[in-house]
């Protein structure tokens, strides 16, 4: 499972932007758009494998997976970003990310259509997002960057499994069940 996922993670040639200040981003595709997450936040990339569903969880939460002995929640990023759902294919992958939350370090996975490159993005490449079309929820995007002929949307991964919102969603679904 691990071997073929690592082949997909290819390293791009270093960019020429301001040295020292730029950082590497893992880019991936979702509904024909390019997204990027900071490579330092990526713990692992793995092929799609079935998850265990969690009761009373929001629709974007597919379930949980065993990641080397700990239980990790998996998010369907298409659902999370209010994009149209598609069937999973052989290139569908799960990117496992690490975030710092108020309760310490947490890991979770996002399911994306496929990963592409690792690119160097310097701060000067990043623009504050204007109105974003195509129904993407702007709260999950920290900025846009034009790198290597692509427009990258930088994903704000700290918001994806936001505690407050999660609680609200779960309480709604619990209330729905309880009634």
């Amino acid at each position: 499972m691990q071997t073929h996922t690592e082949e997909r993670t290819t390293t791009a040639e270093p960019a020429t932007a301001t040295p020292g200040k730029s950082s590497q981003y893992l880019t991936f595709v979702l509904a024909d758009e390019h997204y990027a997450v900071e490579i330092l936040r990526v713990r692992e990339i793995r092929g799609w494998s079935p998850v265990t569903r969690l009761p009373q969880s929001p629709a974007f939460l597919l379930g949980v997976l065993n990641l080397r002995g700990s239980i990790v929640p998996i998010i369907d990023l298409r659902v999370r970003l209010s994009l149209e759902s598609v069937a999973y294919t052989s290139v569908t992958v799960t990117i496992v990310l690490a975030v710092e939350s108020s309760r310490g370090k947490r890991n979770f996975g996002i399911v994306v259509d496929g990963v592409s490159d690792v690119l160097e993005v310097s701060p000067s490449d990043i623009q504050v997002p204007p109105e974003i079309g195509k129904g993407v929820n702007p709260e999950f995007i920290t900025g846009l960057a034009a790198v290597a002929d692509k427009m990258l949307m930088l994903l704000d991964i700290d918001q994806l499994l936001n505690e407050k919102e999660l609680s609200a969603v779960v309480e709604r679904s619990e209330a729905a069940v309880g009634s």
Partner: protein
Amino acid sequence: MSLDLTQFHVTFFEESFEALDGMEFALLRLSAGEPDAELIHTIFRAAHCIKGGAAIFGFAEIASFTHTLETYLDALRGGYLIVNQLGIDLLLKSVDLLRSTLTSVRQGNTVDQHPVAALQSDLERLSQVVDPPDSGVGEPVHYGAGAVVARPGGDVARHAKLLPGGWHIDFKPHRTLLQQGNEPLCMFGELQRLGALQPRVDIGNLPLLNLMNPELCYLAWDLRVHGEVVRADVEEIFEWVADDCEVLIRALASVAELPLPNQPVPALCPERAIDLTAPQQTNITQIWYGESGSIRVSIEKIDELINRVGELVITQSMLHELGGSGTPEVSRLQIGLERLERNTRELQESVMRMRMLPVNTVFSRLPRVVRDLGRKMDKQVELTLSGGQTELDKNVLEKIGDPLVHLLRNAIDHGIEKPSMRRQLGKLETGHLRLAAAYKGGRINIRLSDDGAGLDREKILARARSDGLVQNEEISDAAIYDLIFHPGLSTAEQTTELSGRGVGMDVVRKNIRALGGSVEVSSERGRGTTFSIVLPLTLAIMDGQSVVLGDENYIIPLVSIVESLQPRAGLVGHGSNCGELLLFRDEYVPILRLDELFGTRIQSRSPSDGLIVIVESDERRIGIVVDDLLGQQQIVLKSLEENYRKVKGISGATILGGGSVALILDVPELMRIAQERGAA
């Protein structure tokens, strides 16, 4: 080159807090006027250890304070001073102050210098050794309010550091002593009134329990009364029993060269002396400090290791499935795989054991609690601990402290009588609490007994009747005593700030049950009460029953399963407003449909299509409908909260043989949900 010393601060704080725990523990065993060299040395070393670190890592206030502390302790250690009650109190205060100071320093807060300086000057005053005005041999010098006893030169004091003079009594009762109506305890009480008493019991002649005649006395005592005591007073006490025993009374000076017993018994209680001679008690002061052969490992590292081993178990089981059969090579492979399986299991068990800590880590702070509560309540209480080495999981350990403190509080508040009352009742003035831990069939049993008033059967019953908890039916003693765990029931005549009113015992039971344990009470009017707590050794591993619900597997903890059955259609009915019910053993049990609660699919449309697992928690039962039962297995509990959040009705998850995740049902919570729904 220079080294960043801040990187050692974490270790310094950890070891300092540990040293303070040890210091407190030893202090609580120390009695005024009875300087036990080993205990004092332990206390000294703890202060010394903190001082050394504080000086090196630049915590000047702490170094300066512990230096003062050390000076006083050094005087005690050298025999120049004899520890008195004031000294013990100041040392305990110092422990508290150092704890709070270390906490502030660790958090980077400023330290309030005022209390530190005040305590420091108190200690300095205490440390001033005044030479005796003349060199009269062994004459103690009192000054101030009798606060400090100085002795001429440390060497004289090496042997017997108690008040000079006194008597050594060899007391060997005849077996018939008790039958003649004599009570050694009363005699010892008399002796204690004469001077500080160090009793030591000889249990060498004690027969096996089944051979023991309860009317015979098998014990002998070695008693030392310290102080200026007239021989005739001692003889008078033994006069009554002269015909029923052998007594040899010698002046203490003549036996001064004999080594004092290793563990001087601070106060009167021969029962206690037995405990102290038991091997697991005698080295109790060393446990905390017995660092040799152990290393400090963070819990994260251990959990990481546990996860890795879990992975190994999964890999191993994958290999096992690949095995197949046929050629000699394959069967050799099979043998190897079996060995691997055994090794992996053993490895997993050893790793899980690394999370186990001795119950002493919780017990050791209780003597302080007892001491403080006893003072507050004007009661004399002694606590005997045993079985402190019994180990259990850190998780469980962290959660039993509060229930234990609560039970102790109750025992001191409601159980142990005031000294005057005890005297009237012919009991020893000092009440006795005994806390013992022991393994009991894969679980741990913790018993707390007191020799106090016992529970008042009639009062509990009256109260329960007036509250409508019981009707006028016949009810067993055990059932009556069990009522004290009922919410809202309290029979204390005077409510006190300590135990409050009725709140508490129900919470104690609830907390213990939440750990998968149980608590029971037994009592004898006038003789005392015993609480018996049984707990699992670990929360991390449990036996689980795998069940199928639609296309998901769930685990039900085996401990909560009463029975699994295929119900006949006629046994399932509908209550008027509380959903489906199952007639199970003459009782209607509510049926919980997990598919409705969890929104999962289930094949079994009606309960009688599938199976019903009857589960129990808090003496209530519900039936859970499942499609099928799979195997039972030992599972390792994993937290969902670590990376996600608590899910209602689910206590955690586990990793199955193939590497997939199965959720574990939270039976107590499901029970509550079923109740809410029933009530709704």
